[in-house]
């Protein structure tokens, strides 16, 4: 089968590991990746657990399509309780780590407990080793991985944290090769467990249940992907293709969201990035090489992706591509979640320019918009929690409370900085940021359906219902796990192509209705996790600036408009006015086991 039903359960406190089995009945209800990860997290992470305590879990999970030849099924995911939002979190990452985990005979890893000293977990098929990692302390993510490969062989796959994760920066990320599980602060969760690195090598053979059916699907799918006109753009420019498109639409956020156009956009666009690209690279098993292996005067990186250009470019007023590549690499080397790091820096810059914070507050740094040299220093201070960095490592919302400034232009929801798609103009994104269980991410309810003019832009009409369909779609996609970059090719909602993929990979014959129900169930379970933690409608909101200050093209999402859309969204999901799933909804979705938790 293309999945094992076996998870590696590691208790770090006791230095023990065991097998944790997931039966097919659960796979049929939650599919894999996001879905089964949420199911495990809900069941094993008790209510009210401190995210940085040993009781919290870090789950690394794969999807049934990973490790097979299914194109664009290259990502793995990580799930936990977030130290930044204190709620559910998940993140996805390309590369090779997830596939290798499956080749070692595991669908995923569940980590609980914590170590006393820095530890490296090495997994070799069914053997698990807890090794000393004190010698890796303070190392950047690349250096850590070079050292591990030097010692254990070039074919081990790595997942590590940088100095930011070690310092428990609330938005520290996980890094595998040059790719990241960006949001949610799972680098800090891994750091709190004193795990610096996980390596894996596997020799198991993943045998498809129905080889002929799978290969037939793959060949047909390859053809449909390559025939799609959008793929050429994705291969040429990567996700950076979106920069000029959003600039023309007037929805490219800049200067901490004071504006939604950026006068230097052309300098840091996908087209400009081409001059720095030395190779178009794929993730493992992917036929769309959207990774832009690019070089600046002093470093190289994969990307920057659109969100990197937003976070280390437009919102901090940086229009220098060379510096952007350097900053993109620097955040990854330090192990900082890029979107949140950019959001924090942009907020500090606005405080500085408005005279609310001076050089005296900022360890002598001149944090005017666009001053990238000062940004580099600040990022290092955050990662090592030095000086002002110690406060900023808590995120902009907490920093605003501590410093007593800048509350009116915090760009956060649930304590986390928002991603780079406009919730003023893109109404599905407004709902997406407000309700996303992992904090304001652009990857649950996607903005593409409006940004690509599939449905009318900037109008709230029916956006609640449409957003529900987007949430159901991404829940399925994130569970079989194929890449959301392929959305324009495979479709922006559940369709026959995705159904065929699920049925071919699993050798099932489920209907579209059943697949839809799986998506609804997964999204509702994530909601239940947050409801159990005390989240409700009051947390499903947007930054004040989005609700009160229109963009240049006159777009704004007022509280009244948001309320109306939220009512429609909750109703479509069968949740009550407070956003709590109704009992009958849980029964309808065969989730009776959670009814008593309401």
């Amino acid at each position: 089968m293309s999945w094992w039903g076996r998870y590696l359960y590691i208790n770090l406190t006791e230095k023990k590991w065991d097998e944790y089995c997931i039966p097919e009945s659960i796979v049929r209800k939650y599919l894999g990746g996001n879905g089964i990860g949420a199911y495990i997290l809900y069941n094993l992470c008790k209510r009210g657990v401190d995210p940085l305590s040993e009781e919290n879990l870090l789950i690394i999970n794969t999807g049934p399509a990973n490790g097979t030849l299914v194109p664009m099924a290259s990502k793995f995911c990580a799930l936990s309780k977030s130290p930044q939002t204190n709620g559910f979190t998940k993140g996805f990452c390309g590369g090779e780590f997830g596939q290798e985990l499956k080749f070692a005979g595991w669908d995923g890893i569940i980590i609980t407990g914590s170590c006393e000293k820095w530890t490296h977990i090495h997994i070799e098929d069914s053997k698990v080793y807890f090794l000393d990692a004190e010698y890796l302390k303070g190392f950047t993510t690349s250096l850590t991985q070079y050292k591990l490969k030097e010692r254990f062989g070039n074919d081990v796959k790595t997942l590590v944290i940088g100095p930011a994760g070690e310092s428990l920066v609330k938005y520290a990320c996980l890094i595998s090769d040059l790719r990241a599980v960006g949001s949610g602060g799972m680098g800090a969760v891994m750091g709190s467990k004193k795990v610096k690195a996980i390596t894996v090598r596997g020799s198991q053979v993943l045998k498809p249940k129905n080889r002929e059916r799978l290969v037939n699907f793959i060949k047909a799918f390859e053809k449909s992907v390559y025939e799609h006109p959008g793929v050429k753009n994705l291969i040429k420019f990567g996700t950076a293709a979106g920069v000029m498109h959003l600039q023309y639409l007037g929805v490219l956020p800049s200067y901490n969201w004071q504006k939604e156009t950026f006068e230097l956009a052309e300098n840091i666009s996908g087209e400009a990035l081409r001059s720095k690209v030395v190779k178009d690279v794929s993730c493992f098993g992917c036929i769309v090489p959207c990774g832009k292996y690019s070089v600046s005067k002093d470093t190289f990186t994969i990307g920057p992706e659109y969100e990197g250009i937003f976070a280390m470019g437009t919102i901090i007023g940086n229009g220098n591509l060379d510096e952007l590549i350097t900053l993109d690499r620097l955040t990854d080397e330090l192990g900082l979640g890029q979107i949140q790091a950019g959001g924090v820096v942009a907020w500090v810059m606005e405080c500085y320019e408005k005279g609310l914070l001076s050089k005296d507050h900022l360890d002598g740094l001149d944090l005017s918009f666009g001053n990238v040299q000062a940004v580099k220093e600040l990022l290092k201070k955050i990662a090592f929690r030095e000086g002002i960095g110690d406060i900023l490592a808590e995120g902009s919302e907490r920093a605003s409370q501590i410093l007593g400034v800048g509350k009116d232009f915090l760009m956060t929801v649930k304590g986390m900085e928002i991603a780079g798609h406009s919730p003023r103009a893109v109404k599905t994104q407004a709902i997406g940021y407000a309700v996303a269980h992992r904090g304001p991410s652009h990857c649950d309810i996607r903005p593409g359906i409006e940004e690509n003019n599939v449905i009318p832009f900037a109008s709230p009409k029916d956006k609640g219902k449409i957003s529900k369909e987007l949430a159901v779609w991404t829940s399925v996609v994130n569970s079989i796990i194929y890449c959301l970059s392929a959305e324009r090719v495979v479709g922006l909602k559940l369709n026959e192509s995705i159904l065929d993929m699920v049925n071919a990979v699993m050798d099932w014959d489920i209907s579209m209705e059943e697949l839809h129900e799986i998506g609804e169930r997964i999204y509702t379970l994530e909601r239940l996790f947050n409801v159990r933690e005390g989240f409700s409608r009051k947390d499903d909101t947007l930054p004040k600036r989005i609700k009160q200050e229109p963009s240049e093209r006159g777009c704004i999402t007022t509280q009244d408009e948001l309320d109306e859309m939220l009512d429609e969204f909750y109703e479509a999901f069968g949740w009550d006015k407070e956003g709590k799933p109704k009992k009958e909804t849980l029964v309808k979705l065969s989730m009776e086991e959670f009814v008593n938790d309401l």
Partner: protein
Amino acid sequence: MIKVNIDLCSGCKRCMLACSLHKVGGFNPRCSSIEIITDIGNKPIAYNIKFCTDCKDLYCLDFCMFGALEACI
């Protein structure tokens, strides 16, 4: 014998998965006759043909979307 043009290769390693599927009926790149060696950024830097049996099916070529593989007699 298979030859790989590293300039055309994207580092996706689909040839390795295809070879593995052909040889052992399942997926694990370590079962493949072809080894594409990539750097930390997934950029292909070298390749190695280990024990290619010169099969006639050429599954590896079939699954390479970049024209990076060539069968030489």
